[in-house]
């Protein structure tokens, strides 16, 4: 498939990508290379100009089981003004599955508790996000995505504003969650160092897919995908 915004020049050209359920895939590439656009098409937020995007066999823009999609948008946590607690953020992850009206039911609250526990934030569950480190804030948003019991988890630039140590911890956490929950994970980042040792597959995007394989097979010239290699 190919795609350009508003009929403009293509941001993505001739993309052919299939992800198998249960895979942990890193989607990397330089800023402006089309990673986020690719993810938005996968999630059905944009429709390709040519070709098609399928999600678990259904057209992505008409996907019927949206409540099973967990999405951590780029820099979502940094745009938050409200003094929300970890518990409040994660509870928002039950919105699609738990209904719009009234307070959360007991069963939904148990799922929220489990998601908070999985990311190791139980001890700070009632603390405002603003009082937590960047890494803890990201884990809270990952727990929010997990609270929907997702079959697909998409994380867009999850290491933005997070120190190196927390990036490593985040990579280990994602690896554990992937193994424990057998969830399909798309990890989108302009750099993939934090997750390189855990991913089975690396997709490099720069206006199209320029590499698709095991990280170990990545040619040396591509090893820092944020650089402007041809």
């Amino acid at each position: 498939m190919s795609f350009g915004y508003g009929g403009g020049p293509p941001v993505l050209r001739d993309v052919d990508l299939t992800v198998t359920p249960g895979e942990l895939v890193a989607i990397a590439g330089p800023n402006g290379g089309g990673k986020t656009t690719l993810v938005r098409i996968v999630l059905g937020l944009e429709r390709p100009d040519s070709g098609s995007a399928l999600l678990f066999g259904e057209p992505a823009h008409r996907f019927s089981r949206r409540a099973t999609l967990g999405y951590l948008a780029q820099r979502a946590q940094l745009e938050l003004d409200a003094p929300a607690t970890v518990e409040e953020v994660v509870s928002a992850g039950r919105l699609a599955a738990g209904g719009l009206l009234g307070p959360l039911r007991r069963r939904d609250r148990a799922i929220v508790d489990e998601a908070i526990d999985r990311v190791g934030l139980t001890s700070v569950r009632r603390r405002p996000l603003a009082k937590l480190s960047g890494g803890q804030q990201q884990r809270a948003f990952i727990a929010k995505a997990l609270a929907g019991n997702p079959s697909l988890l998409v994380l867009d630039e999850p290491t933005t504003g997070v120190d190196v140590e927390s990036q490593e911890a985040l990579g280990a956490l994602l690896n554990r969650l992937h193994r424990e929950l057998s969830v399909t994970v798309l990890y989108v980042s302009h750099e993939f160092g934090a997750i390189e040792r855990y991913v089975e597959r690396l997709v490099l995007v720069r206006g199209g897919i320029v590499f698709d394989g095991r990280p170990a097979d990545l040619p040396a010239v591509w090893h820092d995908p944020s650089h402007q290699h041809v």
Partner: protein
Amino acid sequence: MFDSEFMRLAFAAGAVVSLLAPAVGFFLVQRRMSLIGDGIGHVAFAGVALGYLLDVSPVLTALLAAVAGAIGIEWLRSSRQAAADQALALVFYSGIAGGVVLVSAAGALNVDLFAFLFGSILTVTPEDVVVVAVLGAVGLTTIGLFYRALAGLVLDEEGARVAGVPITFLNLVVTILAAMTVAVSMRVVGVLLIAALMVLPVTAASRLAWSMRSTLALSMAIGFVCVMAGLSVSYYADLPPGGTIVLLAAAAFVAASGVATLRER
């Protein structure tokens, strides 16, 4: 003060307004749509003028105009016909211009109209209190029912959109609530100052709160205290209630900021 019926009515209407305006404003402020109440207020002004022209209840016509204006702003914003600030400006200026033209046509440029613009405790009637109480109850019940959904939208709209949450419907709920709040509040604080009562208590509460729920509760508490105190001061000092209430809300923000600064040291 409570010997006078008009003060009892003003306090009854004020109590409802003081709780509803910050509760609705909470969702607007968190989504960085603080000025939408101002835009809707100007459209409500045109609605008041239309009421005078047609010789029907100005509260009713203001409510209808405010809902139409609110839906218009939301449509312009969400369909990307105009940027959010441009959508607001378009509705804002059209509202005030329409109001001036309609007022002139109705020959109603008098004290009564001034009361709608800036609020007046003398003009609250028993019928107004009934309308305010009913609309206030509907508004607060709606917020109670949809709190979790609206808070979820505040926290992560894009994530909610991906998960299939009906964003457009929930945005419409918020904008109609804002329109209702303007119509309900205009007798007490006036259409030109109502936005302040929706925003200032929330910004003050944000300085002190420790969670979203506590922000909402504190906003309503600050709103209540400001309206009750404002009405009392305006009665004894013979000041316009809308301006007095809003100045107290601004003072509450300054005080809350001071407390927050001291607490951080």
